[in-house]
């Protein structure tokens, strides 16, 4: 397959493996000595573990250090984990904080420069150039998504429309009139836009849209196909989290064989989420990240809760940076139903496979008489509505059968009316767990 290959920073993105490791070791030592002198939380962690930064001889030695978790960030709310005085900090961002206090992160001027560079890398990898008009439909605010993509686009020289989230009809009007060519939003909002276009009779092929950069929530390959078909675009994935930096930690090239992880700025490990043990290369497990160049908010062995796998072979595009598989869900999104691990993304895959079924669904987990039950509510649309009861019931039976095979646990499928499941313009809430454990 011959695809156009554009590389933003060839020296960094195509560095030989051994050189990457040497650079990582040097930067890791610098980061460890920075936090050991500036951040009380890490001073205490080093003391407890009996391992001092000076003891670090190889990258593998990192596993002697304890993890950093969201809980550590909450305990040090708001600025306790910062490694520089506030006068060095030029930007504050924050996570949504759906459970308890939000987490606060800071950036120095140099951190913003790195962030901008890393976003420019993955946007270039996805084919964005200075000719593009980038339509950013992430919410501008404390959330890192919009600003990250905004600065990356400007670095490339593209024209940015700082649209922000919501107001779908206006988004479409601007997309038509301003000739947006690159769309930035969550994949579920991408589908909301496709739905609205269909409703308004807008042919996506009449738009200038050619590429979509989707992130901020896990999504499936089937969802990619649907976004590509319904919006007439190339859909690429990117990954990031505010605790580490925001978008730009990893992003796909046009070969779509995993997201290139910026290993010159982050060190990645894959661990067993239950035991914390580092898993051998190629294993599926929880991604743990250590920042290597951050000044304001360095993170040592941060548990991302995202489940993935890393591939260290060189990509067809020529980049040597490890490729991170699409996240399979989060350890905290994972449902344990009758003792079986279930990820909402698995259910999404099955619903897509059954022809014509869009992923407007919600999982309802309950417990009756000490038995877990899983109900999947699926919104009916014209493709899966039949005038004959026999066919309608057949659809339900087929869906239930396929879900049971894939999940390894039985599920009841309930058809509900269109738009009866609550829609979010941003991240989709897929699970309602009513179990009182």
């Amino acid at each position, binding site marked *: 397959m011959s695809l156009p290959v554009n590389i933003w920073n060839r020296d960094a993105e195509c560095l030989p493996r051994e050189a990457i490791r040497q650079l990582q070791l040097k930067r890791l030592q610098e980061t460890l000595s920075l936090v050991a002198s500036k951040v009380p939380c890490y001073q205490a962690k080093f003391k407890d573990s009996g391992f001092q930064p000076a003891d670090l001889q190889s990258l593998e030695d990192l596993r002697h250090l304890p993890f950093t978790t969201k809980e550590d960030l909450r305990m040090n709310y708001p600025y306790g984990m910062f490694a520089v005085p506030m006068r060095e900090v030029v930007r504050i961002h924050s996570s949504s904080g759906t459970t308890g206090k939000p987490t606060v992160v800071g950036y120095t001027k140099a951190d913003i420069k790195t962030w901008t560079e890393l976003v420019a890398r993955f946007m270039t990898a996805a084919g964005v150039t200075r000719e593009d008009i980038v339509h950013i439909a992430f919410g501008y605010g404390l959330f890192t998504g919009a600003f990250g993509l905004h600065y990356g686009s400007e670095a490339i020289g593209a024209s940015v429309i700082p649209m922000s989230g919501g107001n779908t009809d206006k988004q479409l009007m601007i997309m038509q009139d301003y000739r947006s060519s690159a769309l930035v939003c969550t994949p579920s909002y991408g589908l909301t836009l496709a739905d609205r276009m269909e409703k308004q009779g807008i042919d996506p092929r009449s738009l200038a849209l050619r590429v979509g950069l989707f992130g901020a929530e896990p999504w499936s390959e089937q969802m990619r196909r649907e976004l590509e078909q319904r919006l007439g675009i190339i859909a690429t994935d990117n990954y990031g989290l505010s605790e580490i930096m925001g978008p730009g930690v990893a992003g796909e090239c046009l070969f779509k064989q995993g997201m290139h992880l910026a290993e010159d700025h982050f060190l990645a490990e894959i661990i067993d989420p239950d035991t914390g043990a580092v898993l051998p290369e190629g294993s599926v497990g929880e991604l743990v990240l250590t920042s290597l160049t951050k000044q304001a908010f360095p993170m040592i062995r941060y548990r991302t809760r995202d489940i993935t796998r890393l591939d260290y072979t060189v990509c067809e595009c020529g980049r040597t940076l490890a490729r991170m598989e699409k996240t399979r869900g989060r350890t905290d999104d994972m449902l344990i139903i009758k003792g079986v691990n279930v990820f909402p993304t698995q259910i999404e895959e099955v619903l897509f496979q059954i022809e014509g079924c869009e992923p407007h669904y919600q999982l309802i987990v309950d417990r009756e008489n000490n038995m877990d039950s899983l109900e999947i509510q699926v919104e*009916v*649309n*014209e493709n899966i*509505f039949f*005038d*004959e009861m026999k066919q309608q019931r057949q659809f339900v039976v087929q869906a239930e059968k396929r879900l049971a095979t894939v999940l390894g646990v039985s599920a009841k499928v309930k*058809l*509900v*009316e*269109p738009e009866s499941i609550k829609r979010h313009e941003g991240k989709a809430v897929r699970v309602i767990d009513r179990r009182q454990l």
Partner: protein
Amino acid sequence: MKVEQISIFIENKSGRLAEITAILGKAGINIRALSLADTSDFGILRLIVDDSEKALKVLKEQRFTVSITNVIGVAVPDTPGGLTSILQILDNNSVNVEYMYAFVERSGDNAVIIFRFDNIDEAIAALTKNGIKILPSEHITSI
């Protein structure tokens, strides 16, 4: 000869049926015949109305999932055994009835049966050949 029937997906929860009839009533659409097939979770409401195009439009605007199917209407003498002769013709010609529902005409002499077949053209041919009169569409939508 074929009659347009509207099918609507409804969840099995209170007030849904009334909502649909209210939407149609407000749009000035008259319901001629109806049947409801249901399960514990959902139902399929089938309607024959005087203006199916308009009904489809207003229901879709209210975000209902709607489809149109072709059915036929047959007049059956409102006497014991009236239906049997028709069903026998269909059986002899191996035509399957997917579902059917009936109502009595205002004059009271005939019952009207609405049929949905797996193969509507074969069914029409079989019935016509055996002298059964299929009601014209206007007859049913203007009852």
